[in-house]
């Protein structure tokens, strides 16, 4: 009897505790826990902790960030159009998330490894993956046509959140290779795992957090919170801001303006540095917005109001960098024009390349299943070859 009274706190206390826990951060955009170095109006602001990570960026770097974002947006628009013309089965647009992807990818070193979802076209671009390769999977001519080890950019993962497990496993491998905390900048490596706000609710992601924490793995969890898990708003997925979840797993979390390429770069650079030096995992929540549909099969007008999209248009990542480059005289109109021309050329290259993509050899489906020959696969290969040969005419 008396035990019970001790064990169960009065209901009012519980309610107050929950209320305190889930009290919304008063001002998400521009609040104290929100890392921003470039305002939506393109004004440079300082941050006590993170300003130093962009101190060594040259004007060339800044123009490069701009070029990356414009080109990847143009590529993305062309891919969307190709889907609408029946040339791709599906496309997941990155529109609005360019800064989050370019900023984080440019903070990586060549020996670092990225594990993407299926929307990291900007990361792939920065890692040097040929954008045409990204289309192959969506056109159905391959299963992701790049060698992950060539650019340290893993294949697109469509299973929501599964890549975070792969990333932690890879990071644990880095530890076993003794490539963490040696102090050698060319040897120490870290892993960055991309996922979205929707995936944050997946078991895989939470298990990854547990493993990463308990093994102190050199992995940075990079969550692009684009506010919508297909049709579910982020408020319905979490009571507390996502970055605060990291605390429960025992590693730090930070929320950054995901539409501010400088802040994303700074925060990611800091986190990757820490991971490489053996300080363990970190969660970055890049607060951004999915301007388009979840994929080309989705119609966002069914579940979200256009006023919300209008608000986020004012926070566009490319517009703010352009405003900053212009006002600080780091780029002139000739530069912006040249990037536009380059973007249009890229679009033509992408379109032509996509249309002329060869269909795969039928028998290639038996390749790359096991590293070494396997008798069962060989038998299946032979059987299938005989079957296809039984038809008249050319294949």
């Amino acid at each position, binding site marked *: 009897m008396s035990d019970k009274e001790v064990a169960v706190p009065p209901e009012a206390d519980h309610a107050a505790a929950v209320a305190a826990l889930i009290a919304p951060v008063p001002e998400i955009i521009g609040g104290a826990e929100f890392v921003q170095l470039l305002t939506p109006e393109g004004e440079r602001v300082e941050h006590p902790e993170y300003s130093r990570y962009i101190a060594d960026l040259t004007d060339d770097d800044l123009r490069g960030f701009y070029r990356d974002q414009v080109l990847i947006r143009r590529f993305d628009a062309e891919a969307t159009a190709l889907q609408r013309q029946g*040339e791709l089965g599906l496309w997941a647009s990155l529109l609005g998330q360019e800064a989050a992807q370019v900023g984080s990818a440019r903070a990586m070193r060549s020996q670092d490894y990225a594990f993407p979802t299926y929307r990291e076209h900007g990361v792939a671009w920065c890692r040097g993956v040929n954008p045409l390769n990204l289309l192959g999977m969506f056109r*159905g001519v391959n299963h992701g046509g790049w060698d992950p080890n060539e650019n340290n950019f893993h294949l697109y993962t469509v299973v929501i959140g599964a890549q975070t497990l792969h990333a932690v496993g890879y990071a644990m491998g880095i530890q076993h290779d003794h490539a963490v905390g040696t102090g050698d900048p060319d040897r120490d490596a870290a892993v960055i795992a991309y996922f979205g706000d929707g995936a944050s609710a997946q078991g895989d992601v939470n298990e990854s957090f547990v493993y990463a924490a308990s093994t102190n793995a050199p992995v940075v969890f990079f969550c692009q919170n684009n506010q919508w898990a297909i049709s579910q708003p982020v408020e319905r997925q979490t009571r507390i801001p996502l970055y605060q979840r990291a605390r429960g797993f025992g590693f730090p979390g930070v929320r950054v303006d995901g539409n501010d390429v400088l802040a994303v770069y700074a925060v990611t650079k800091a986190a990757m540095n820490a991971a490489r030096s053996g300080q363990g995992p970190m969660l970055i929540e890049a607060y951004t917005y999915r301007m388009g549909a979840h994929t080309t099969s989705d119609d966002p007008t069914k579940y979200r109001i256009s006023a919300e999209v209008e608000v986020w248009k004012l926070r566009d990542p490319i517009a703010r960098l352009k405003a900053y480059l212009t006002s600080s005289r780091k780029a002139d109109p000739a530069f912006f024009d040249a990037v536009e021309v380059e973007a249009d050329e890229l679009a033509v290259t992408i379109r032509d390349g996509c249309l002329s993509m060869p269909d795969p050899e039928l028998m290639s489906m038996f390749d790359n299943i096991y590293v070494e020959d396997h008798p069962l696969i060989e038998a299946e290969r032979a059987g299938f070859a005989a079957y296809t040969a039984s038809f008249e005419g050319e294949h």
Partner: protein
Amino acid sequence: MAVKHFNLPDPGEGLVEAEIVTWKVKVGDVVKVNDIIVEIETAKSLVELPVPYAGTVAGLFAAEGDTVEVGTPIISVDDGLGGDVAPVTGPPTGKAAGTAGTATPATSPEGIEPGATGDTTGEAAGEARVANLVGYGPRVTSGKRRARKSESLAATTTSQVNQAFSPVAAPPDSPAPPESPGPPESPAAQLVTVPVPGGGKVLSKPPVRKAAKDLGIDLSLVAGSGQGGIVTRADVEAYAAGGRATATGPSDLLANGAGSTSYAEPVFAATGERETRIPIKGVRKVTAQAMVTSAFTAPHVTEFITVDVTRMMKLVDRLRQDRELRDVKVSPLLVVAKALVIASRRHPGINAAWDEAAQEIVVKNYVNLGIAAATPRGLMVPNIKDADQMSLRQLADAMANLISTARDGKTQPADMSGGSITITNVGVFGVDSGTPILNAGEAAILCFGAVRQMPWVVKGKIKPRWVTQLGLSFDHRLVNGDLGSRFLADVAAILHDPGQALVWG
């Protein structure tokens, strides 16, 4: 190739058809790559399609409102470069036979579209699979499976059947392909869509054969609408009901004159149909479902009140002069909307919903005010979110915005969801009142009739006054007669004397 065709792609995953909503271009327009040419509606979404070619629009092959199968050509573009000119317009007879032998761009994988080659088509073309046409470009499927080398009798038959019932020619109500749809045997395939002379092999399932026999119908006279020209039960029934021309008649496209009408005209002209059958789809279908759901789950009660609104009409006149409201439309409907909002705040139980699953009544502390609107796409009930928070000016703006959006046919699904109470303004049609059916998920709907001058007794004398009738339908599961009556009387009281709004607002 000078003229290139663009086939309707699958804009989602695994969709097989879409409705043409609005053409953004017409024949003769100059287009660039990725210009938006058409808006289509699929089972999933409204989608704008960009054109893959630059040039001049040479032909549109489907009319607005048509439902088109994925893979069917919908537009052709002349790139102005000359070369082999493919026939662009015209029905698939006559010309088809002529062109099939010479220029067969549709069947040549390399002819038009450089990238795509055989194997996806081979599969897609065979029988039922036409949905996933990734990378098919402008090609039309050949409609034929490759034969096995060791041909048995059965294989031969299958092959012949597949040839004869090429899916390209089969669906009778899809817009006709603009040119020869495929292999040289396609003229034979055309026969499928017109009555086959007795003795011809007709594909049908045994129960349907039996049904036809029972009805005394010769199956060879029934045009099949199923896959590959199979005669379905619906075809037989339609034939029995005299709906023969529906199955065999021309598509809307041809009837609308986008191609020559000579192909199908005789069928129609000779018989002179006594009925027109319109497919139930799109907004009509959704409306019907919503109405049936509402009418047969919520027990409706409707009450009426006739009210002298002379003072409201005077107020409307005064408001039209008001500086604050200078550039917006002030209508009696606006005042009715305001009155409804005020009255629902006095009687929150009316602004509520029945949650069957949770076994709860949801009383809404906001008013999302729905306005039933007749739009080009059919009946829509967009709502004004948080109308109770709005000043009269804001309400007027929101209403103007809502009406113009609806009129343009651009109302989005999100604008129509989450409504809490609705007004239907039948007065604009000069009608006095009605018994409206509740917008599904809401507890009340107010019907606003015509305002007209009537003889009315004022202080013992008959005077001409502006009078209207209000009708209120409510869901008796959660709204009793007393609540419904008080609410309706309050709305009427405000319209009778708008000053009452000061007391209650």
